């Protein structure tokens, strides 16, 4: 037990004690504490186990850069969040946190065996070791690695929280509310600029929060900002990514810090577009690299200062400092002045500023210049250190219970780098600083390399008389990468930092190398004997700190996950027990089971009704486009494969749409309403794509045509009435249209009224029966449907779904684009030669139909397939072979595209794409399945009523 709470000081509220638990033990802290500061105040130094070696770890930092102290927080069922940094978890009453990466307990961890095997787990160990034999991978290596790998545990339940999202626009976005960010905001206050100032912490102030001398300034500045109407301050908000054109993604944490959150979003995604961005992200202190630099109690000097000044917590009773930079001296002076015992200041440098030495003397602190720590004693906590002169001589033991590291500072250039701003190397800082911007952005304060922390000596790792290859001096604490791993990578031939990074995994953990990148870079440069700038710099990628999936999804969860489009008749289907399926974004009734029917029974009943009497089907999802203008017919003539100019008003035509490559992309029946007006239909899933393609041709290839396209998909509800009784049912309801076979033949359209509302009545059939598709303004769809159901009771009217629709159309050999075609099927392949206007000089895709590959024999062609055993229904997607006895892998000559039980035929039917299929009619082919081989005979594609007698009645 080393850390403790001081009697005074800090910004915590000592009048508000807070109880919380860590690994099941209850502790007390204060309002304003973080989990980290409260644990340290209770003397808890051991906060986690490392990723690879399971080494005991304590705090390294005091902010979001913390790599070690990752904890899981439970906020009740389903509300489990792993991998939170204890330094960023605000304390609240009842907070329940657990440590990670240990079993069975934090103090006694089985995985720590890895630490003792450490010499066998060098960089690249996984790549080298688990290569052979191959069969061991599935059974042994992968399961073992999986058990050991990963940070924390994934939650197992659905997240019951909800999340908000918003867009925001501002003239000036300031990231970071430290002194530099606040100054930038003050400068803009009172102007007409819309300013957003955001900060990841619960309190604005950044580094000023750790410096009581600035508190008065901070308080007054925040008061001024709060009073400025043009400034919005977002606290607990992390800018996690900086994207093109000053688009910054940020997450605001709304409720996790509250003991009893009210209803409301847990987090909110801010999508901010700014005219100008000011980055004031500050700088992060750099650890020093030496043996034992990861023992709990070894931490950044700045973190110790923050714990002291902000939380009133001393990190130890006898604290030593290992410095290469002036700033650490000021930190430990602050500790000394607060009454914390200081063991010594050890500085790598042979000389330092006389003022520092003078102050050390005044405070009675022993100083060892030109020395380095060469070992740290203690396993679960620091017990002392061994120091030696930089030449290796004079090793001496120094008792202490905490060791601070002051290795200099690294500007936080993460967001700057996301925005693709260039960086310049500064030898004096041993760091990259922002150079040329790529967006309207500037860096201010410490993240631009400007600070008043004093100066220091840049070092890759501390000198040591010990064998460098036998010590663990950590560079990347979260991924457990040591200096010797990086040197090994260089010895093994890696020369680029990008490769060294991937081989050693340094900088690849969830902390994005905030504390490790520059140490790793300098060690690699040293080992390569080249300047740092020559070996490159790895990219920073979003997110700056890990964010929850919930926040990134925003409100796109549950009912709002993705729009489910519903027709006006959908509610009737739901009330009547329909089973639904999703088709594109649409929810469609698949079948209407009655009295416990399964799908097959329901579909058979629905098909029987259509063939024997009348069925009713909601076809509202069909894409519809109104094509209007003097050149409408000319335009369609160019788009579709068949001729359109001679189509008379009042008549319909099946249209086949190709891409320029000659392959079928959509189809549908369309009607000519007037000389200059067509009502097109498309497939349900193809509606938007077809409209876009047509607009493309119209706007860019044929802008001279006077014709315009309007999507009318949602203007009309479409009810298909199919079956021999359809006309009888319809006739009494329709006014102004003669329904007789002569006056209203198949493939015609009439306009009139039905039940008093206007209708576009199509006489068309996708079932092979007498059929009508009744278009009425969408608001009347449900009422008309119910009227037809009521009036149709006399005929046994039966609602049918998409499954029966599929069966009925397959019995007639009608294709479904996207099911029986796959983007490589021409009209000839599909047996739709009749739909190609061969005399037309041109249409979209025509030229491709004479390409050599398209006219070559042996293309896959659509055919029917009748199994020898009529009760066997083939599987859609099943492969077809000519000779089932051939050796595996067999030569596959096609596949099944559609397969159903046909109630009308009393047997199974299938459609298939088969190489040279149209020449193979009558041949027997084979469908090998895992348990058997099914034989089937190739047939034509029309299985039912091939003469079409049932249509023309």
């Amino acid at each position, binding site marked *: 037990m080393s850390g403790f709470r001081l009697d005074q000081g800090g910004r915590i509220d000592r009048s508000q004690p807070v109880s919380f638990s860590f690994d099941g033990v209850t502790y007390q802290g204060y309002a304003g504490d973080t989990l980290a500061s409260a644990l340290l105040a209770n003397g808890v130094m051991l906060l986690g186990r490392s990723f690879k070696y399971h080494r005991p770890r304590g705090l390294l930092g005091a902010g979001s850069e913390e790599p070690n102290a990752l904890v899981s927080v439970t906020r009740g069922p389903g509300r489990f969040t792993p991998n939170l940094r204890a330094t960023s978890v605000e304390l609240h009453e009842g907070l329940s946190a657990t440590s990670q990466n240990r079993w069975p307990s934090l103090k006694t961890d089985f995985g720590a065996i890895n630490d003792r095997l450490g010499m066998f787990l060098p960089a690249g160990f996984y790549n080298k070791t688990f290569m052979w034999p191959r069969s061991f991978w599935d059974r042994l290596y992968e399961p073992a690695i999986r058990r050991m790998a990963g940070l924390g545990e994934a939650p197992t339940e659905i997240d019951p929280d909800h999340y908000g999202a918003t867009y925001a626009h501002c003239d000036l976005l300031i990231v970071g509310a430290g002194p530099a960010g606040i100054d930038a905001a003050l400068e803009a206050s009172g102007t007409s600029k819309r300013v957003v100032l955001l900060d990841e912490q619960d309190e604005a102030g950044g580094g000023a929060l750790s410096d009581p001398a600035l508190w008065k300034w901070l308080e007054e500045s925040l008061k001024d900002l709060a009073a400025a109407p043009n400034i919005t301050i977002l606290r607990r908000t992390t800018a996690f*990514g900086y*994207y*093109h*054109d*000053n*688009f910054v*993604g940020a997450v605001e944490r709304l409720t996790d810090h509250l003991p009893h959150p009210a209803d409301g979003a847990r987090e909110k995604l801010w*999508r901010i*577009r700014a005219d100008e961005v000011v980055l004031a992200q500050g700088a992060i202190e750099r650890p020093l690299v030496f043996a034992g630099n990861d023992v709990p109690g070894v931490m950044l000097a700045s973190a110790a200062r923050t714990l002291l000044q902000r939380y009133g917590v001393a990190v130890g009773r006898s604290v030593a400092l290992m410095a290469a930079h002036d700033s650490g001296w000021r930190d430990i002076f602050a500790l000394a002045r607060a009454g914390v015992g200081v063991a010594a200041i050890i500085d790598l440098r042979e000389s330092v500023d006389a003022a520092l030495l003078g102050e050390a003397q005044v405070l009675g602190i022993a100083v060892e210049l030109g020395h380095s720590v060469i070992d740290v004693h203690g396993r679960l906590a620091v017990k002392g250190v061994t120091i030696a002169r930089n030449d290796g001589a004079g090793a001496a033991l120094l008792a202490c219970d905490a060791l601070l590291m002051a290795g200099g500072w690294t500007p936080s250039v993460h967001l700057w780098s996301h925005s*693709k701003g260039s960086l310049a190397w500064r030898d004096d800082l041993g760091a990259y600083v922002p150079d040329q911007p*790529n967006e309207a952005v500037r860096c201010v304060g410490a993240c631009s390399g400007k600070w008043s922390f004093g100066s220091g000596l840049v070092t890759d790792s501390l000198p040591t008389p010990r064998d460098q290859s036998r010590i663990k001096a950590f560079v990347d604490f979260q991924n457990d990468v040591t200096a010797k791993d990086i040197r090994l990578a260089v010895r093994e031939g890696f020369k680029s930092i990008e490769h060294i990074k991937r081989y050693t995994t340094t900088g690849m953990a969830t902390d994005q190398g905030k504390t490790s990148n520059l140490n790793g870079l300098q060690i690699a440069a040293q080992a390569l004997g080249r300047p740092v700038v020559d070996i490159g710099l790895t990219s920073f990628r979003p997110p700056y700190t890990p964010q929850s999936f919930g926040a990134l*999804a925003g409100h*796109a969860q549950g009912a709002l*996950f*993705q729009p489910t489009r519903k027709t006006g008749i959908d509610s009737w289907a739901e009330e009547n027990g329909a089973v639904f*399926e*999703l*088709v*594109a*974004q649409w929810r469609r009734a698949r079948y209407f089971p009655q009295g416990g029917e399964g799908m097959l029974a329901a579909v058979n009943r629905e098909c029987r009704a259509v063939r024997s009497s009348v069925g009713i089907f909601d076809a509202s999802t069909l894409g519809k486009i109104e094509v209007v203008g003097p050149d409408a017919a000319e335009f369609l003539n160019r788009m579709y494969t068949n001729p359109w100019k001679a189509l008379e008003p009042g008549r319909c035509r099946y249209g086949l749409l190709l891409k*320029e*490559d000659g392959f079928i992309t959509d189809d549908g029946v369309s009607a000519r309403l007037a000389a200059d007006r067509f009502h097109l239909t498309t*497939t349900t*899933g*193809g509606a938007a794509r077809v409209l*876009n393609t047509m*607009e*493309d*041709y119209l*706007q*860019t*290839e044929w*802008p001279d045509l006077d014709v315009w396209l309007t999507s009318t998909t949602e203007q009309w509800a479409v009810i298909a009435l199919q079956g021999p009784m359809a006309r009888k049912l319809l006739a009494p309801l329709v006014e102004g249209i003669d329904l007789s076979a002569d006056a209203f033949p198949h493939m015609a359209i009439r306009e009139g009224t039905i039940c008093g509302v206007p209708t576009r009545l199509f006489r068309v059939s996708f079932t092979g029966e007498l059929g009508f598709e009744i278009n009425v303004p969408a608001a009347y769809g449900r009422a008309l449907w119910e009227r037809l159901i009521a009036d149709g009771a006399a005929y046994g009217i039966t609602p049918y779904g998409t499954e029966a629709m599929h069966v009925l159309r397959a019995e007639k050999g009608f294709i479904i684009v*996207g*099911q029986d075609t796959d983007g490589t099927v021409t009209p000839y392949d599909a047996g739709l030669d009749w739909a190609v206007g061969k005399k037309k*000089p*041109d249409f979209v895709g*025509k*030229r*491709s139909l004479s*390409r*050599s590959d398209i006219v070559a024999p042996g293309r896959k062609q659509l055919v029917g397939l009748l199994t020898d055993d009529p009760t066997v229904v083939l599987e859609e997607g099943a492969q077809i072979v000519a000779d089932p006895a051939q050796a595996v892998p067999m030569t596959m000559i096609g596949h099944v595209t559609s397969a159903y039980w046909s109630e009308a035929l009393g047997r199974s039917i299938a459609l298939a794409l088969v190489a040279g299929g149209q020449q193979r009619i009558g041949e027997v082919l084979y469908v090998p399945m895992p348990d058997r081989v099914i034989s089937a005979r190739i047939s034509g594609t029309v299985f039912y009523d091939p003469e079409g007698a049932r249509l023309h009645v």
Partner: protein
Amino acid sequence: MRRQPPQWRIEMLLIHCPYCDEARAEIEFAYAGEAHIVRPPDPSLMSDEEWQRYLFIRSNPRGRHHERWRHIHGCGRFFNAVRDTATDKFEATYKAGEPRR
């Protein structure tokens, strides 16, 4: 086409529509391939090789690229753009039918 995966993306670019004369968020736009590839007036006159070039061959440069976008959830117009494929920065956008920039 039966099921579509959810469409989700962070829309980042700000694109100036030459018709609306306004910079709007990328999510309102659809990319539409390389620009200034004109459909031959009479494809039947083209050799297989010429037609193949028209159909399939695109320039795919690193750097300055002429491409088409559509302000599909805005004014609906297709237009041309010059964008640097390495930096994603738009150099210019201009109306369909205007000469190549």
